[in-house]
């Protein structure tokens, strides 16, 4: 293997040579520069390959002496990998910076080489003093490189960097001197042998100073003002290097020093890291400057990494162990690749304000890369951060530091919030006024693309490592990738393909399901297949829809099959992102998508904490292990229930729901409302099914969930009454129906569960049909406002029939299937003794009549508008699935026992059955119901008056819409004759106070408060170098006092 000394010499020599060569021929100089970069990269690559294939660690001592009299270098696996990555970034960075360097002249090449030398030393060096020297080399060359930009802000930033660097070196030097005085050596190996216990009191202080200096290099809160200015003003290519390579090198120093740390210092590292992580993310919330935002994110990530390192130290986990690599390596790779990519993209876009990033709209491939990096940074699957976060959180919980875990989750949540705000602004914020031209240089695109390839590569590696090549887990991603590759195909073909794929997936997964999961499987697979069909309506390729549909549906199916909480969480997050991306495809969905994502992530983090707590107690990630909980039974139950309830859109947390259902693409909305909403129900069912009844001091949690359910039903219905937008009406109606399902589940009895599943299936059928009908309407009328429609029964009779049957099923009027579900629900409630809930449920179900009638009346009845004279029936891509759904409703209604009897038998495996059957009549302990007979009786009675009226047909004259009695006048125009707007004005007068947007205001207030808090924190960054210096001093003093390190 190549001796690293040669590399150092090469770099130094070529730095000198460059200056000479440049005078002769600048081309050769540039060639030399890139050659050196390539050589370093290759050499470090060879080292890594060698070491990974089992070669021994190399130790090098110059001049045969031990430090401090010589340079001591070591190349182990960790060193070589980090060095390789650093060189890679440096190499790609050099390509990226090519134009800038060419403009600034040879000195920037030289400085860049010096910088790389500094990194090399920092990574390889094994003694304190040399570490210090290389650190200085790196930081001085960085400062000058920043300053070379020659604009006022960059120079000032570079100068602040120098001030901070000076202070840091002062502390570091003091620390090193005293350590040497105390121990007589500077070699890390020898020091490690001494250990922190071998230090005197003064030596411990020195150690503290040393660690503090290293930490400050990692930009902890609040001593990071200088770094932020650097991130914001330095050229993005450089900022990427500072954020990734130099931070990586410093982190590596921390890693090397970690064995020296005393418990107090470890505490110090942890607290400093967590505080930095949380507060940076908090401040980041308010940021609108793209690079500063990236800066906060970088700082936060470094905080998280250092905290994670500290925690590993505290828990005694070897960083080179499998777990340590997964956590630290995962987080590091994630940050390293993602952040570099984002910084480089920010250089390409070259817009300060995130609002101006909408120019990305014109460059789908770049948007795609951008989105990938954002997802990676938000630690969503399958990116490395996801697995690292899971492992980290579980490890923290396992070691009893729950509060830290919650803090980290809170910080991640905020980071996700601002990153996605940025993403949405970039993807959806497009308006014609923004200038869409970008100068895309291949030299700049290439490094970004490499980052993307690497991050995907590492994702796959880690996913496979962690999940053990589980084909099921990769199924959604493979499906998504296939459709991504096929995205050029027309939508109709892809629809057929997707149906085929779904059929295969169902065929594969369905036999693996048992019990109630089968019913959910039926809903998820068969239901999806019906709804996917509507996507064929479009003649365009509808790129971005099918990929996500595939991922969404297969991850839903995956949810049903998984045995472990990890796989569940993985599928859950996949479902979240894919549904978020689908939602983002809607026309005006930006705001709703963000709300949806935030609530989904919050819900996911609640689940994650629940899984963590459960793991802490049972030391198992199997779902079944949750049943064995003792200590943490209540908190785990609460966290799980809260997570799933938020995802179901329970009252108070419902504000994401209407927007998500209403603003999504019209063709995908049925899927959202009818199927995706059941994922929360499924989770809730698992929770109730596995953990069972939980009570705290006699207060049953099922009871609380039941009340939440019924309140959701009530508010959902009431809110739906006052909507003017057809999709919002349906969305709120879904909220109401989900409320019933939650209520029925919470009853936790046989009838209750049967009712819940029956309600779910019913809801899927009628709400899917309604949303499909709405999609058909919107596609024909180009409006969503119901009062702009009217009289469409004559134009779109099939859609009318769909809506008619669906609302009868929805409102629970016999003889259709809705009544069966209502009957089961009330019986369950009454048997359980939830009497007041029954009353309220009844009230809510009568309120449903209001919006049902309004839906059908204002759209299909009343006066048709002249503007819609030419409107035709919706396309058959919408109508066919509707007919299928209607047939299903009719069959369920005619022969309820065909479905209910097996369902009831299945549920009987879980709970004591209370329903019995006699022929077609179902008996509960309270009442009985024969759906079949009711249907027949109703039909017969219906025929008699119908025949009488049919006999009168010769006397009947068919008239047109204006042939109405109108106080002896003739109506003026249909628009003013159609009574539709604010249809329930008296109801609004009487009960409108109940639907004031309290929840919305509360959440808006919360987010306002958070951003304000962040902004308040932000005020400590005055932009003044002296203040920043003061922060550094404060940081050291305060942390010393708090942790009492030493």
């Amino acid at each position: 293997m190549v001796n690293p000394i040669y590399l150092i010499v090469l770099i130094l020599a070529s730095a000198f040579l460059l200056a000479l060569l440049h005078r002769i021929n600048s081309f050769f100089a540039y060639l030399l520069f890139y050659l050196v970069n390539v050589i370093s990269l290759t050499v470090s690559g060879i080292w890594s390959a060698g070491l990974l294939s089992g070669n021994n660690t190399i130790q090098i001592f110059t001049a045969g002496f031990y430090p401090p009299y010589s340079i001591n270098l070591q190349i182990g696996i960790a060193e070589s990998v980090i060095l390789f990555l650093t060189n890679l970034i440096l190499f790609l960075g050099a390509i990226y910076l090519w134009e800038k360097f060419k403009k600034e002249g040879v000195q920037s090449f030289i400085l860049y080489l010096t910088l790389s030398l500094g990194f090399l030393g920092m990574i390889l060096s094994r003694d304190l003093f040399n570490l210090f020297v290389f650190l200085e080399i790196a930081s001085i060359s960085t400062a000058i490189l920043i300053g070379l930009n020659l604009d006022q802000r960059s120079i000032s930033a570079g100068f602040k960097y120098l001030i901070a660097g000076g202070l840091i070196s002062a502390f570091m030097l003091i620390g090193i001197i005293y350590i040497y005085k105390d121990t007589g050596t500077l070699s890390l190996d020898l020091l490690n042998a001494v250990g922190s216990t071998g230090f005197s009191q003064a030596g411990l202080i020195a150690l503290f100073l040393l660690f503090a200096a290293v930490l400050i290099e990692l930009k902890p809160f609040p001593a990071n003002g200088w770094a932020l200015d650097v991130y914001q003003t330095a050229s993005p290519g450089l900022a990427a290097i500072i954020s990734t390579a130099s931070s990586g090198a410093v982190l590596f120093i921390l890693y090397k020093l970690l064995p020296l740390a005393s418990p107090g210092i470890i505490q110090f590292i942890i607290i400093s890291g967590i505080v930095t992580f949380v507060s940076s993310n908090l401040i980041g919330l308010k940021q609108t400057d793209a690079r500063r935002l990236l800066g906060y994110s970088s700082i936060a990530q470094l905080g998280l990494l250092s905290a994670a390192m500290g925690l590993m130290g505290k828990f005694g986990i070897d960083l080179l162990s499998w777990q340590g690599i997964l956590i630290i390596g995962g987080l590091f790779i994630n940050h390293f690749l993602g952040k570099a990519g984002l910084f480089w993209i920010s250089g390409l876009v070259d817009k300060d304000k995130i609002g101006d990033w909408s120019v990305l709209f014109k460059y789908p491939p770049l948007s795609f890369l951008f989105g990938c990096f954002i997802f990676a940074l938000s630690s969503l699957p399958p990116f490395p951060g996801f697995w690292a976060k899971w492992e980290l959180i579980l490890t923290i919980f396992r070691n009893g530091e729950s509060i830290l875990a919650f803090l980290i989750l809170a910080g991640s949540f905020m980071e996700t919030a601002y990153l996605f705000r940025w993403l949405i602004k970039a993807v959806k914020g497009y308006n014609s006024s923004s200038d869409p031209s970008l100068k895309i240089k291949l030299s700049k695109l290439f490094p970004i693309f490499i980052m993307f390839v690497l991050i995907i590569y590492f994702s796959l590696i880690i996913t496979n490592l962690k999940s053990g090549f589980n084909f099921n887990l990769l199924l959604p991603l493979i499906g998504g990738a296939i459709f991504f590759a096929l995205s050029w195909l027309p939508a109709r073909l892809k629809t057929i393909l997707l149906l085929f794929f779904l059929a295969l997936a169902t065929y594969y997964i369905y036999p693996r399901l048992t019990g109630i999961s089968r019913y959910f499987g039926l809903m998820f697979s068969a239901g999806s297949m019906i709804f996917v069909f509507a996507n064929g309506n479009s003649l365009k390729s509808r790129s971005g829809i099918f990929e996500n549909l595939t991922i969404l549906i297969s991850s839903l199916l995956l949810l049903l099959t998984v045995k472990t909480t990890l796989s569940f969480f993985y599928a859950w997050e996949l479902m979240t992102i894919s549904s978020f991306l689908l939602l983002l495809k809607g026309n005006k969905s930006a705001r709703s998508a963000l709300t949806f994502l935030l609530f989904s992530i919050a819900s996911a983090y609640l689940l994650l904490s629940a899984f963590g707590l459960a793991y802490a107690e049972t030391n198992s990630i199997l779902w079944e292990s949750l049943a064995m909980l003792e200590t943490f039974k209540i908190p785990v139950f609460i966290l799980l229930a809260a997570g799933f309830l938020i995802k179901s859109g329970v009252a108070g947390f419902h504000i994401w729901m209407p927007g998500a259902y209403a603003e999504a693409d019209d063709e995908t909305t049925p899927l959202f409302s009818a199927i995706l909403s059941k994922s929360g129900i499924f989770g809730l069912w698992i929770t109730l099914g596995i953990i069972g009844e939980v009570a705290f001091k006699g207060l049953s949690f099922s009871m609380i969930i039941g009340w939440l359910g019924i309140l959701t039903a009530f508010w959902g219905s009431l809110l739906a009454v006052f909507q003017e937008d057809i999709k919002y009406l349906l969305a709120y109606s879904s909220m109401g129906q989900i409320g019933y399902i939650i209520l029925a589940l919470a009853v936790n009895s046989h009838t209750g569960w049967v009712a819940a599943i029956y309600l779910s299936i019913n809801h899927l059928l009628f709400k899917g049909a309604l949303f499909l009908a709405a999609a058909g309407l919107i596609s024909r009328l180009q409006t969503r406002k119901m009062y702009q429609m009217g009289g469409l029964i004559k134009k779109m009779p099939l859609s009318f029939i769909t809506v008619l049957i669906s609302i009868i099923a929805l409102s629970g009027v016999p003889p259709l299937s809705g009544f069966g579900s209502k009957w089961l629900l009330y019986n369950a409630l009454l048997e359980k003794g939830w009497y007041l809930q029954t009353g309220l449920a009844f009230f809510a179900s009568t309120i449903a009549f209001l919006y049902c009638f309004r839906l059908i009346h204002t759209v299909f009845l009343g006066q048709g508008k002249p503007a819609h004279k030419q409107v035709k029936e919706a396309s058959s891509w919408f109508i066919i699935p509707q007919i299928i759904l209607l047939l299903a409703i009719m069959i369920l209604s005619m022969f309820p026992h065909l479905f209910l009897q097996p369902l009831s038998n299945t549920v009987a495996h879980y709970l004591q059955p209370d329903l019995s059957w006699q022929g077609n009549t179902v008996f509960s302990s309270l009442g009985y119901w024969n759906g079949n007979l009711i249907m027949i009786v109703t039909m017969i009675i219906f025929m008699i008056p119908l025949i009488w009226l049919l006999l009168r047909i010769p006397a009947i004259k068919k008239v047109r819409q204006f042939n109405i009695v109108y106080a002896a006048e003739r109506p003026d125009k249909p628009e003013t004759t159609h009574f539709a707007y604010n249809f329930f004005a008296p109801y609004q007068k009487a009960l409108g106070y109940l639907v004031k947007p309290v929840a919305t205001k509360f959440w808006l207030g919360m987010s306002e408060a958070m951003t304000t808090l962040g902004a308040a924190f932000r005020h400590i960054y005055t932009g003044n170098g002296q203040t920043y210096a003061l922060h550094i001093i404060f940081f050291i003093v305060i942390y010393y006092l708090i942790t009492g390190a030493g």
Partner: protein
Amino acid sequence: MENNNKPVNLGLSAADRELFCEALPVVRKPLQNFIEKFLNWARANSLWILGFGTGCGAIELRPLMTSRYDMYRYGIAPRPTPRQSSVFIIGGYASVKTLKRIVRSYEQMQNPKFVIALGSCTINGGMYWDSYNTINRIDAYIPVDIYIAGCMPRPEAIIAGFGKLKELILAGKGEGANKYADNFEWYKANQRKIIKDWNMPDYNW
């Protein structure tokens, strides 16, 4: 069949024409047997009135409903919409503007329908006989079954008028609707003569 491809509803704009039914009324022959007698009996004893309070006659209808004259005991009841009524009461003088509404309302009633016109004004214009805006005789525009003279007729007179109407109906002579359909062209011509801004369909279904 009613409309032999003759252009209709020409008073309406092309856009409005699509909003109105274009058919014209047809004669609905009564059955010539005992069933019709029975039905006529029912019709005579269930007179639902559409009060058209054009003039002072409307005042006289109020006491008719209240306890003193109690028209309900004769099976007479007010109805709020022409669709459901069978007797159209024109309560006094009718201006040209009102006539338009009278025609609309009359045409919106269902066959068989009867008209009672109250007061001198409806008979020959009464005290407004030479006004530029008050029509002189209602029966030139819609078929009238009963005229009740007076300025205004008292409620007793109106009840007597209803009695006469009953007799007419029982005798099978209350065929105003058919008469209107039969002489539709004539009635329309008369109406059109004075209703200048004809912005309604030819027959208001």
